[in-house]
């Protein structure tokens, strides 16, 4: 029976089994903590707390489903699909900004008609940009030192997409920008060019701040952070309460469902979910979660050693870095290493499209590792034979 199950897993869940296990573990933690943290939300809106649990669990399954579907796709197609999506995301981001601007608020979502779900185009754009970047880098490995032909297109794409995202969501843009730098660094872009990229980024950032709607928030969050370094009473409401949660947790935590700060902390189920993890599961729980992400990163970037083609390796590493980097930034904010950002903890925080896109990204990583396990060349030949017969 067990043997049968094992075989069926092997047949259906291809790719790196460690990554599958990591994802399932993180999802499990997510369900536990989100259930505990939505208690106040349920109370606030007079809803049954199980509503949020069921909703969130369904979304996690949706994310896992997306991961499974994606991992069955041959990763060679990602390059082309991503280019189309990248082009598509430009008008989408513009539309989101303009629609938000007319309502005079930071609207990062657009509602998809018919299914009536809100969707954050910046998630799509990030994924498309990282994939395209990996593809462009892999194609230009031979002449990577050539500034004009190799680097200019990449720099332009990074500048445009990050700049557009920054109009409505500065922290996401900054994170994406840093991730892109990291990927380019891995993709052998010389450091002096990367320094230049920082300049481009700064320029795009300032322009976006002036044009966009997030300037005030960004400045006040930054000032708050600066002041709090010398005087903890100056901490903002969220940061202040998350510190108390962390301090309350001690080494072993208060136990599942025992958080007190979830009642005080706004959004304990999304941006500040890590504070609740520490409060309930202690510093140990925190170390475990950080550890899980690091292992995920390690497994994700292994493709770089294994694959013969640079695209697969760069893409897998790039996506792993993007996910784990965001996780670390989120956790860094919660513990007070940076100003409040509003970025969710991938796979753990409650929230719709974020989980879905993380699932797709993980599926892409698995698709690459799956191909690698056959050996890069064999996939290549398999594809060619297929086209020949077809």
């Amino acid at each position, binding site marked *: 029976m067990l043997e049968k199950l094992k075989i069926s897993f092997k047949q259906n869940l291809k790719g790196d089994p460690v990554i599958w296990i990591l994802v399932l573990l993180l999802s499990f933690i997510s369900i536990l903590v989100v259930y505990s943290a939505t208690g106040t939300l349920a109370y606030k809106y007079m809803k049954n707390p199980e509503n949020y649990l069921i909703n969130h669990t369904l979304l996690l399954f949706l994310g896992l489903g997306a991961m499974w579907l994606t991992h069955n796709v041959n990763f060679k197609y990602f390059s082309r699909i991503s280019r189309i999506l990248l082009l598509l995301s430009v008008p989408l981001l513009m539309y989101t900004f303009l629609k938000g601007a007319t309502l005079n608020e930071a609207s990062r979502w657009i509602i998809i008609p018919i299914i009536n779900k809100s969707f954050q185009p910046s998630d799509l754009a990030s994924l498309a940009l990282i994939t395209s970047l990996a593809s462009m880098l892999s194609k230009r490995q031979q002449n990577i030192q050539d500034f004009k032909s190799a680097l200019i297109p990449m720099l332009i794409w990074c500048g445009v997409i990050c700049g557009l995202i920054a109009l409505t969501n500065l922290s996401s843009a900054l994170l994406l920008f840093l991730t892109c730098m990291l990927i380019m660094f891995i993709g052998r872009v010389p450091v002096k060019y990367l320094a230049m990229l920082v300049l481009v980024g700064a320029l795009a950032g300032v322009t976006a701040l002036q044009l966009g709607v997030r300037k005030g928030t960004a400045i006040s969050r930054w000032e708050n952070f600066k002041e709090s370094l010398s005087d*903890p009473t100056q901490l903002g409401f969220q940061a202040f309460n998350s510190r108390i949660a962390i301090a309350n947790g001690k080494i072993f935590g208060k136990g599942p469902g025992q958080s007190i700060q979830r009642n005080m902390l706004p959004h304990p189920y999304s941006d500040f979910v890590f504070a609740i993890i520490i409060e309930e599961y202690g*510093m140990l729980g925190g170390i475990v979660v950080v550890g899980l992400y690091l292992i995920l990163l390690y497994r994700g970037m292994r493709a770089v050693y294994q694959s013969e083609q640079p695209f697969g390796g760069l893409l897998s590493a790039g996506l792993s870095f993007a996910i784990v980097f965001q996780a670390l930034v989120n956790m*860094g904010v919660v513990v007070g290493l940076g100003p409040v950002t509003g970025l969710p903890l991938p796979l753990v925080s409650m929230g719709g499209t974020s989980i879905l896109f993380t699932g797709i990204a993980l599926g892409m990583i698995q698709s690459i590792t799956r191909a690698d396990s056959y050996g890069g060349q064999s996939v290549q030949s398999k594809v060619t034979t297929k086209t020949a017969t077809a």
Partner: protein
Amino acid sequence: MNIKKSIVLRVRIAFIILSIFALAVIFKIGHIQFVQGEYWDKVSNDYAYKFLDVKATRGSIYSDNGSLLATSLPFYKVAMDPTIPSAKLLNKQNLDSLSYQLSNFFKDKSPSRYKQMIQSAREEGDKYIVFGGRTVNYLEKRKIMNWPIFRKGRMKGGLIFEKKEERFRPFNNLGYRTIGYINEEEKGVVGLEYSFNNFLKGRDGKAWYQKISGGKLRPVYDESDIKTEDGLDIQTSIDINLQDVTETALHKALDYHQAEYGTAVVMEVATGEIKAISNLGRTSSGKYFEKYNYAIGRQGVTEPGSTFKLATMMALLEETNISLNDSIETGNGTYKFYNSTVRDHHAGGYGMLSIQDAFEKSSNIAMAKLVDQHFGVDPGKFLSYIDDLKMSGPIGFQLYGEGVPKIVRPSDTEWSGITLPWMSYGYGLEMTPMHTLMLYNAVANNGKMIKPILVKSVRKAEKELERYDTEVLNNQICSEPTLRKLKIMLEGVVERGTANNIKNSYYKIAGKTGTAQILKNGRYTKTYVTSFVGYFPASKPKYSAIILIKDPKGHYQYGASVAAPVFKEIADNIYSRDIELHQSISEKYRAEKGVFPVIRAGKKDELMLICNELGISNHTQTEQSWVKTAVSGNSVKWKELEMKGKALPDLIGLTLRDAIYLLEQQGWKVRYSGLGRVVSQSVPSGTQVEKGKTIHLNLG
């Protein structure tokens, strides 16, 4: 180095960078838990946050023309976070000036005391100090927002206003019981406030508050606060002038007769809209006030007495072929059914009467005999007429706590041989005054019975969310000929019958008096419920009304002498003011044709005085003393004439005297040409103009 090796090396470097970051996160957790641990333990006790309810603003209740009957006015607690203003903003000059303003406004502390209070709080890091011992109103709040430092607002100036709502009724106790009132939890307990509480109350929100020294709470203003949803407004059909007239007339009569209680309802015939509803009960000190809604409430259910004869007459005319000229013997004023006696009020009896006379003179014997004769065999038939007239069940009125009629049916054990004859003149069955009014209104409305309506719509600002339309209960209560006969007799009651004391030559009233003995402990006493119900003008009915006064003391004990005069007073008043009711006056008597004086703009209290004196309906939307006019339905609406500092106001429509006053007061000079009102100004309104500049006005 080959490409792959280089990439592998770089990806490892990147991994190490992120690992260091991860270690930093864990290190920071340790730092918070162990190095700062004690500090956070202490702070979490001291700076507890609370997620508290925030009251939504309760909706307002409006009269038919938009006058406020009840509203919630905001009052504000003035507080400050003195740690917020920068040192530059809080310089000596600004602080002195602010302290002076505070002292001068609240008059509870000297300026130096205020200055000290702000400074020491700032030094101690006290984030919340409250000024003055009282709340301020909205106008005062606006003034305070202009003070030095405070004018920078909450984020920079540290000014905090905390809102509190108080319920305010501009017309005090007018229609108090019908409009209703709220309890300490801001829940309506009676009247419209109660019945429409769900609309009025809105949805309370929640907000974070921080506990600070002294057990006080300071709002945090976090984005996770749940916003309040203000309550909806209710538009009633109450006409505030009519309500005033009705209440005054009723009050006067109650005082005179020292009655137990009285109720008066005025209804618009065609729509069923309640235009005035007054309920006055006597208190132990002998004063009258709106104690209970006798017109519709459970305690208001009484035996109608003679006013019910209209229903009886209708049933007789419909069921039989008797004619108004048929005669009936009422004898010497007493008549026996079994061993019980029916009496007429007239000493010695009326003798032989026509049926029309019997109704107009309100003969009990005639009614009892006729009904016994025609319905005695099948009393159920008589009751089915009452059912058709909707007088045996609740009306389904818009107020909660409606009284339910009591009626005995042939199948009940209480039914006896005398039940039917007694019922014919309004005994042995009970209903609310509203039921009776509904019947008379139906006759006035050519047989179409409609449901009385008090609330016309529920609205949010100008938007109508729910609309209550006139509801027809019975499209035709009786045949045309019957209706005509009923109308003739109702007019006859006033022309030559029991209520001829209210007959007048200007317009005709149709109606019926009622005098019912009060049943106490199973016995009819020598105390009465007197009533008059009818409509006017009889030729083309516009309003119907019922007046009911219980237990008048002294000489007068009849509906004709107690209740009917109140009806007349109300009707007279309406008639004198409602031009529509008057017969058209021939051309030659009309006022001179030509230019009528118009109101465009001016000082509000003066304009209101003029309008009220001339009976021009007007209502206000602004607290400002200078106003412009707008037309809203048949009435004038006062709008704010904006005056902001150096910005030139819109002067169009003002008289020269007012315009000069306004401009020179601000230090501008005025030149003008022409005669009449301001038609144009040399500088457009809203322009910033320096003092001493000349403004040229064209009059016309």
